[in-house]
């Protein structure tokens, strides 16, 4: 449902539903911590982020209309067919594997934390770098918005400058939530 919506807000709502259901699957797989994270970060932070953008870009009815025009069968038929083939092949691959039954065991957050800060400490550090880069990058891209840096900008800047300037803090806070969540 997400990918077929024309209105971005609708799509985002369906996306939130999808995230929540994935979180439930996590819970049933015995990963409660990850399930919680899924709900908080994906369904919380990221969706909020998207909604902010949609709000700021003012994507409304005309966007939905436009989307409807773009989404012709001839546009999506071929990719869908290809993806269907891929899907089929992957499922075949899945079921041609060994078929031992699996016991679902709860992996508690404590074990997870030990593993994370034990053997994966380097990866955690690297993730820290990545997030830092993300912060800096987002801040940078956001900062330059108010300067006429491109010839396309010359005739179109002005009324939305305020909104742009308020943009940078959001990813930052987002990242911080991610970090805090972890």
């Amino acid at each position, binding site marked *: 449902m997400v990918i077929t919506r024309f209105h971005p807000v609708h799509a985002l709502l369906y996306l939130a539903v999808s995230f929540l259901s994935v979180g439930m699957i996590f819970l049933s797989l015995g990963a409660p911590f990850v399930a919680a994270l899924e709900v908080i970060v994906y369904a919380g932070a990221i969706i909020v982020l998207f909604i902010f953008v949609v709000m700021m870009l003012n994507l409304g009815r005309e966007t939905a209309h436009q989307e409807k025009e773009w989404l012709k069968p001839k546009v999506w038929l071929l*990719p869908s067919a*290809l993806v269907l*083939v*891929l899907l089929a*092949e*992957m499922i075949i*691959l899945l079921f041609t594997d060994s078929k031992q039954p699996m016991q679902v065991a709860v992996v508690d957050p404590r074990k997870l934390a030990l593993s994370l800060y034990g053997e994966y400490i380097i990866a955690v550090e690297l993730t820290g770098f990545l997030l830092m880069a993300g912060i800096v990058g987002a801040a940078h891209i956001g900062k330059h918005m108010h300067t006429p840096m491109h010839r396309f900008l010359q005739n179109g800047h002005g009324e939305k400058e305020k909104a742009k300037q308020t943009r940078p803090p959001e990813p930052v806070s987002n990242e911080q939530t991610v970090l805090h969540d972890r």
Partner: protein
Amino acid sequence: MHQLLPYIPAFPILGFLVLSLFGRKLSKPVIATIGAGTVCLSALITIILGFSFLQTEPPGGVYDQLLWSWFSVGNLSVDIDLRVDALTLVFIFIITFVGALIHIYSAFFMWHDGDYARFFASMNLFVCSMLLLVMADNLVLMYLGWEGVGLCSYLLIGFWYEVPSNCRAANKAFLITRIGDTALLIGLFLLFKEVGTLNISGILHQAPDQFATGSSNIVLITILLLAGGMGKSAQLPLQTWLPDAMAGPSPVSALIHAATMVTAGVYLIARMHVLFQLSPVTMVIIAIIGALTLFVAGCSALAQTDIKRILAYSTISQIGYMFLALGVGAWSAAIFHFFTHAFFKALLFLAAGVVIEALHHEHNIFMMGGLRKRMPVVFITFLAGAAALSALPLVSAGFFSKDAILWYSFSAANGNPLLWLMALAGAFITALYTTRLMLVVFWGETRTPVHRQPGQGMVIPLVVLAFLSVTAGFIEWPHNMLHLTLFSAHVQKVLPETLLKTTLPSESLFQLIAALVTLAGVFLGYILYYGKPGIRWQQSPALAGIREFLFGGWKFDQLYNFLFVKPFVFITRINKSDVIDKMYNGIAQAGLRLNSWFSVSQNGSLRLYIVGVLAGILFIITLQLLL
């Protein structure tokens, strides 16, 4: 006395600088004074130097003057160092003295030419280079002079550059001598590698310890040096440039292409005689080349009709004699022949120049004739030169030198009857074509009216040279006639004495044979050409074919054309589109083609890229599934 040495080449170079820088602004008398005067001053100094050399011999028989150090790299140190010993003295005497006479002559000869200053600048530069060549104490400086004379030769052959054929002749001379020069340069490199010095005296001292007699190294080096000498001296495989070089003004032909530059090869071999003595093979090659050259060039001279080309071929032939003498080890005889040849050949060229000038630039001898009465002075001087060229016994300088060579070609340690026969045949031919030349030009009926008589300034050098052509031989007599061997005594301070065979026939007999052969040549020429010149030759077709063959200089030009030029042109034509480059271009073009294909795919559509990724994944998974 050695302080005077630098001034000998310095005056001509000064003249060259002044004339080339300010030549356009100076009036003709000033140019003539500078051009001829500088060389005359050099000649004067040389004569003073020569006298002092002969009176009180300097220590070691050498005047040595180190001017400055040219460059010094590693263990190679090249100085500007002038050195005059007995051999060099002969050469600088010829260069400056004959050079001065020719300069005086050309001051009048070239009077009406527009590029008076350029002519004298080139001539002065030539004299300077030639002096450097013979006075250099090391081979690098000598090579500088060597290239310098080549350059001047090129400039002067192409002096009248408005005529395309002159330019072609200049190019030809330059290119063909370049072959020899390259060989010489490689030889010098090898020599430096082996001996570790390029100082001439150093090489001559070290060489006997360095090389075993006949070792491959020394043979290679000497052959390379010989090739250099062959290029410059127009010996057999590389002789074709000299006849064409006659495109230059007559004084140039006299100075450069007869008296001095073409004997640079002779000088080189004589100077490096220690090396050559270590390589008997090369000596034999030199002798054979000399003998072949004198014969081939003599035959060609028989058929020529251009007066200057006759003289050019005779020059090649006479240098062939010198090479023959060098090859058999008759060093002093070779230098002696150089000495006399310089006088009479310069004389002949200058006289020919007068004749050509007088007859409206008519070169064909069959268009001349009957000049004996109308240009008596030229006739007498020309006669003296021709007598010396054909080596008329006793009354000419050429006889003494050529006779010595003939004698040594038989009697010297590596002499050979075959070489002697070749030389004898050469002598016969020389006499024949000289007689032909004389009879056709000066006897018979008038075919072209005399346009003007030569002036005093042109006649005086002729007379001086004619006098020397007759008398220069008297300083060296054959052993069996008179014990007067001033020249070889002088030269043998530097050059080794000629080794003779132990058992020898009578020298007098050989002289008699040589004299008779010469006279026979003259006589035959007289029969053939007196009265009706050139008629008999044209009558029979077979003879005409031979004549045609000889006229083309044994068709060497055509041979080279066929052997070298044609293949090169062929290769060039094939390679016009650059075969090798095609490969690289092909790579570049393949790259461009691929680029154009791939850049279609790089259309910036993100989704297309993703489809590409998807297709790749699909391909891999399908493979996994199928295999």
